[in-house]
């Protein structure tokens, strides 16, 4: 899509390659040591932090890669969605109840 707008911005090819390499390394480490990883990560108790930390690491590294991947492919959000929008008034099905004036009697 970037092409259609006259290459308004440079595609993040370098970032995609860096994150892609990191992601590949992470998955290679995970899948080439399956037995050791499975044994260690399923001990329970404090070892529970290991799968959680790995999931976070994947989300950061592979998430970064997939983000740049789609950008390089030219698939990005519409330009209008990235503009900052002022607060809009929304319509309501019915009027909200207005606060009623109260009379306070003084004794």
């Amino acid at each position: 899509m970037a092409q259609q707008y006259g290459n308004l911005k440079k595609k993040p090819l370098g970032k995609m390659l860096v994150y892609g390499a990191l992601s590949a390394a992470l998955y290679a480490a995970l899948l080439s040591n399956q037995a050791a990883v499975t044994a260690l990560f399923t001990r329970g108790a404090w070892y529970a932090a290991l799968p959680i930390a790995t999931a976070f690491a994947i989300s950061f590294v592979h998430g970064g890669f997939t983000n740049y991947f789609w950008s390089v492919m030219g698939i990005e959000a519409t330009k209008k969605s990235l503009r900052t929008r002022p607060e809009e008034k929304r319509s309501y099905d019915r009027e909200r109840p207005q606060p009623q004036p109260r009379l306070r009697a003084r004794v």
Partner: protein
Amino acid sequence: MHNIPFEAANFIDLNLMNILYLFIVGFIGGLVSGFIGSGGAFVLTPAMMSLGVPGLVAVASNMCHKFPKALVGAIKRARYGQVDVKLGIIFGIFAEAGVFYGANIQEKIKAAFGDAGSNLYVSVAFVLVLAVVGGLVLRDAVRTYRSGNADSEEKVAKLASWVQSVNIPGTMIYFKSLKAKVSVLFIIPLGFATGMLAATIAVGGFIGVPSMIYVLGAPSLMGSATELVVAFVMGLGGSFKYALHGLVDIRLAGIILAGSLFGIQLGAIGTTYVKPFMIKLVMGVIMVIVLFSRALMVPVYLSQLGLIETLTDTTVKILKNTSFAIMAFALLTGAFIVLQAMYKGHRAERETAEKEVMETA
């Protein structure tokens, strides 16, 4: 959870076909989740179980893939100004409580009635919730489309207008997605129900998103995006709980995540190309199709419990396979609608841009 057997010894061997299968299912699930905020996970647990993964390991690994996926999706959609972090976190905390309570109920049902009883409970919950909520969401989407007002700003539902008008001192919080203050006392039961559903059918968003839209008054885009924050909070707590018992197969979670992170980015991008009612349409269509998938399984569990005549093995096999096929069809249909809507939106924007260029030249 205390009686959960240590199932690490049952972790399956992974071959290339298994990896590819999980990657593709993950991608499609991620695509749908990125678009409607949830809904992609329900097919993953049965998909893993079809490879021979024990039920609890499949549930735990699904949960562990869900929270990082939701995190990535939430960050992406926050860039488009669609996420209400405050609402997501508050909603998510009560949803987490619902998850624990729901899991507790599941365990009690399982202890009392066995696997068949537990499965029947899950299927009945699926059918009831999806019939009521899915029907309402789909009807609303179709009405909006037919009314010709699909382009106009979404109206706040009457119930949501009332909820926003109720003032309970000491409990009011302002939410940017609602552009109004709402009492946290309304959020507690909604979050709790979302968590309970997540613990029961693995997709809390089927209550979470509609309740944010129709009860609290959030726009569809913001409701579905905020659900990703809720899913992150719920998924993180749930994953930790399962990991404490050594039930998470990080290899499975990682492979699904490899596909679903591609999908969730694409689904999130897709939300910027479509009209808000499309979120409701995709969600409604998936919910209604899945409803039939689970309804097919009810006779199987009733038969296993001895409540109806025993079904033959062949009948059970046919029903199970058909149920899984319908579930996969639901997800594929959702993904197709998302991709088609994206393509149309993309083409329309390209034409507008070309027109602008022509006019300037």
